[in-house]
């Protein structure tokens, strides 16, 4: 009896813990409904876009799905090594940080990926 009580409180043993963890993991993928292949493509595309603007440590990228109730967030953790200067938007003036319109719409190409 005492053991049971302790077990319950400290949550050791018990296959239900495993069951819950397995369910949580499997459901993240079920709910996100994204194939490993798609995930890999996404990773590659993301790296190619981001490396236009900064050097990143591609070996340490973490990508995962974060779950809250029935919604899923895609969270990427990308270590930055260095921000590139050459690709800064042309019209951005130093000090104007109230950027209602950010300069993302600027057309610029030719920067090698």
């Amino acid at each position, binding site marked *: 009896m005492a053991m*049971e009580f302790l077990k*319950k409180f400290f*949550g050791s043993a*018990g296959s239900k*813990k495993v069951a*819950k963890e397995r*369910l949580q993991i499997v459901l993240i993928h079920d709910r996100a409904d994204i194939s490993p292949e798609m995930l890999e493509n996404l990773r590659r595309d993301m790296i190619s876009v981001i490396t236009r603007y900064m050097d990143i440590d591609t070996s340490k990228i973490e990508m995962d799905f974060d779950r809250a109730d*029935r919604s899923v967030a895609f969270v990427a953790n990308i270590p930055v090594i260095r921000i590139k200067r050459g690709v800064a938007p042309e019209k951005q003036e130093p000090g104007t940080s109230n950027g209602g319109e950010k300069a993302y719409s600027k057309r610029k190409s030719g920067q090698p990926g």
Partner: protein
Amino acid sequence: MDPRVIVVTSGKGGVGKTTTTSNISVALARAGHKVVAVDADIGLRNLDVMMGLENRVVYNFIDVLEGTCRLNQALVRDKRVDNLFLLPAAQTRTKESVNSGQMEELCDMLRKEFDFIILDSPAGIEGGFRNAAVGADEALVITTPEVPAVRDADRIIGLLESMGKGPIRLVINRLKPRLVKEGEMLDVRDVLDILAIDLIGIVPEDESVVKSANRGEPLTFSDSAPAAQAFQRIASRLVGEDVPFPVLNDENGRGILAGIRKLFGMKG
């Protein structure tokens, strides 16, 4: 009261859809509501045998939709209680024999006659399930506290939500209090954490469910078995009564707290 069309579904097979359908239909009828239990599992009908009405089936709802008979010819009246009817499925047809438009039409016909239309859905997520759900307003999702059943329930909940059904409420069936107490079975709170929908009932594992299926007498015709009481409470909550979730006892009569936190947060 407006008629209520409720689909009973689960994704996974064998978790208790038909048992739930028959028991809450009986309980609602005994409470004085006019109820029809519809077997929406074309080709694999079972609700008739679970309710003990298999010998009285003449027509089925496809006959009604095809104009072979009138609705009241296909309805099988349960003689054990007033106001309870079964609308059987066709056994020798396939799920493709009806389309969603026809199922909506059928539900609309039944709305004119009944307070509660309880649709027993087939397992799966394909056409048969969609046809069962299309004409329904709300849903009862049945699961057991096991990994595959909960996973499939999650899928079904997503589909029901995308179809605009609501409220979608959860029945946790075949809970084994002893295993829960030992930490060897998902408890109510675990399942609710994962599925994040309102709970409407917890049904303990109960051998009398097997016996009642053998006899074709839904448990809610009598009041004694633990599962009977659980289904009875679900029926009461369905009509908006505030019924507390009791402590479930294991074989030794020791209780477990069935869900604690979220139970008190839920409404009707």
